């Protein structure tokens, strides 16, 4: 009797099977395969494509001695911190904050403009950003009109260009998250503080920010992870160049694996990226769990 009940209980989980199969086959298996392949000399073509040999930690040793790798790690960190953690996050908060004060039509129009950059297909956004920063692009036209000398941004300052482009593209997400969070802040509290003579800054730092703490944490984590994976924007704008000056980890992994056909080495780089993502992911899960208590 009890056994039959257990069986019936387990049958209830049957509908989960299609999802689990899809996730195992297309997400879990590639992750495991990636870690495995990173210890081999697997290649896209040639002899090593058919019979890859186990090479142990050779790929990782090569990574450490390859000057492109630490540079890519550094550029990835710069890209994530500058464009997501600082740029998108703070600008999103600023826009959401201004929206609570501005007139309604103004915030509706500006909100639409910000969201438009985000909803566009990524390749279109990437082309628009490329045109904007290119040598005869809109930015230099504007600078020229203002009497300032422009630069060939994509060659002289590729990281500046891709960071700004990613801020432009991604801020809408933070803006939406913070608009929802700010709308849930009870008016009474900040109004009471206003009556007590708290300045705008004081209200922001001591009342609003603590109240939306969990939204800030969630948003930081999500934009960090999204930005960690950005490939198309950088690839279209600079292709990682000139001479690796804007090669982040996803671009480097793509180049090694698909351009140079070195799957083993490419997966080693990808594995580093996966570990980075998992570290963030586990931290995120812990944060959420902590919130529940």
């Amino acid at each position, binding site marked *: 009797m009890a056994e039959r009940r257990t069986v019936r*209980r387990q049958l209830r*989980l049957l*509908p*989960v099977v*299609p*999802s689990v199969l*899809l*996730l195992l086959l*297309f997400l879990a298996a*590639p*992750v495991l*395969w*990636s870690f495995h392949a990173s210890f081999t000399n*697997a290649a896209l073509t040639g002899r090593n494509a058919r019979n890859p040999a186990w090479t142990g930690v050779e790929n990782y040793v090569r990574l450490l001695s390859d000057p492109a790798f630490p540079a890519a790690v550094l550029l990835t960190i710069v890209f994530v911190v500058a464009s997501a953690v600082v740029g998108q996050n703070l600008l999103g908060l600023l826009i959401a904050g*201004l*929206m609570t*004060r*501005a*007139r309604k039509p*103004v915030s509706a*129009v*500006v909100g639409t403009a*910000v*969201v*438009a*950059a985000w*909803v566009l297909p*990524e*390749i*279109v956004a990437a*082309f*628009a*950003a*490329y*045109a*904007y920063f290119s*040598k005869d*692009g*809109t930015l230099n*036209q504007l600078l020229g009109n203002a009497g300032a000398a422009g630069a060939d941004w994509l060659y002289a300052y590729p990281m500046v260009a891709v960071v700004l482009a990613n801020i*432009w593209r991604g801020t809408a997400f933070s803006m939406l*998250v913070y*608009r*929802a969070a700010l709308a849930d802040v009870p008016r009474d509290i900040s*109004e009471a503080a*206003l009556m007590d003579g708290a300045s705008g800054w004081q209200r922001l730092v001591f009342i609003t920010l603590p109240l939306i703490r969990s939204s800030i944490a969630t948003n930081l*984590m999500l934009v960090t*992870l999204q930005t*960690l994976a950005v490939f198309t924007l950088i690839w279209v704008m600079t292709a990682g160049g000139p001479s690796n000056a804007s090669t982040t980890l996803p671009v480097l*992994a793509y180049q090694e694996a*698909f351009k140079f056909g070195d799957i083993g080495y490419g*997966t080693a780089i*990808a*594995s580093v*990226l*996966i570990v980075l*993502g*998992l570290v963030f992911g586990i931290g995120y*899960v812990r944060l*959420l769990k902590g919130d529940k208590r």
Partner: protein
Amino acid sequence: MRTTGRPPLAVASRRATRRGVASPGFRRARTPADAALLLIGACFVLPLLWLVFASLDTTAGYQTQLPASASLDNFAAVLTPDLLLGPLWNSLLLSAGTATVTLAAAVLAAYPLSRFQSRFNRPFMYSILCGTCLPITAIMVPVYGLFVQLRLLDSLPATVLFLAATSLPMAIWMTKNFMDAVPVSLEEAAWVDGASGLTALRSVVLPLMRQGLGVVFIFVFIQTWGNFFVPFILLLSPSKQPASVSIFSFFGQHGAVAYGQLAAFSILYSVPVLVLYVLVARGAGGSFALSGAMKG
């Protein structure tokens, strides 16, 4: 939209009087806020201006300029089966297929997670959450390898399945949250009448969460429609490539770029997702859906 929080009239007027009493400066603070917002908005619009102007200009370059003589020639030039319609059809197949598979799998998975207590629930939901954190760019190399081994390269259905797997974690979270909002008591009547779980799901639960299902479907659709990297790696033959990949046909062999046509193509390719996004934002609220996805 729920989150812009149109306050009830009474609250609004109370707020207005309080503001007037407590701080006369509050009213003045609106104009600087408006100005700052408009400035930021202008910065966001600027990169898009090129797209619009160049699409109307037959002699367009990367400069943003009002077209000397505006014409729809660029649009006419790209509106051919080869250039635009075929790739858009592929995009549609890819996005609709992915959204359908994702939604079906997510609904099935969310039902037991939402309705029955099990010790598997929590670990499953948290591993799913980790799945949403996986940078997809990082697993493209092994996925390419997997597709080569299984001889699935250049297969539209296989690409749909992979895209569905990548959007599943987020979709399961959203669907479960929408389903949790439907009271269990409504199904109990059906169970008493002898309906099985899945019958109750189909006849009671799903109709009640129609709007939520629409949000999930459109979210996945938009995501897939804009996805460049996955079809770029997994689909090889030009006849199967979606618009996100075929857009490169505007780049000639020797750096010659048909800028105007590129811009016109980009606009036509973007319109469907812009429309769908507006639908979501109007219907259920863009940030409502976000908060639905992020509730723990």
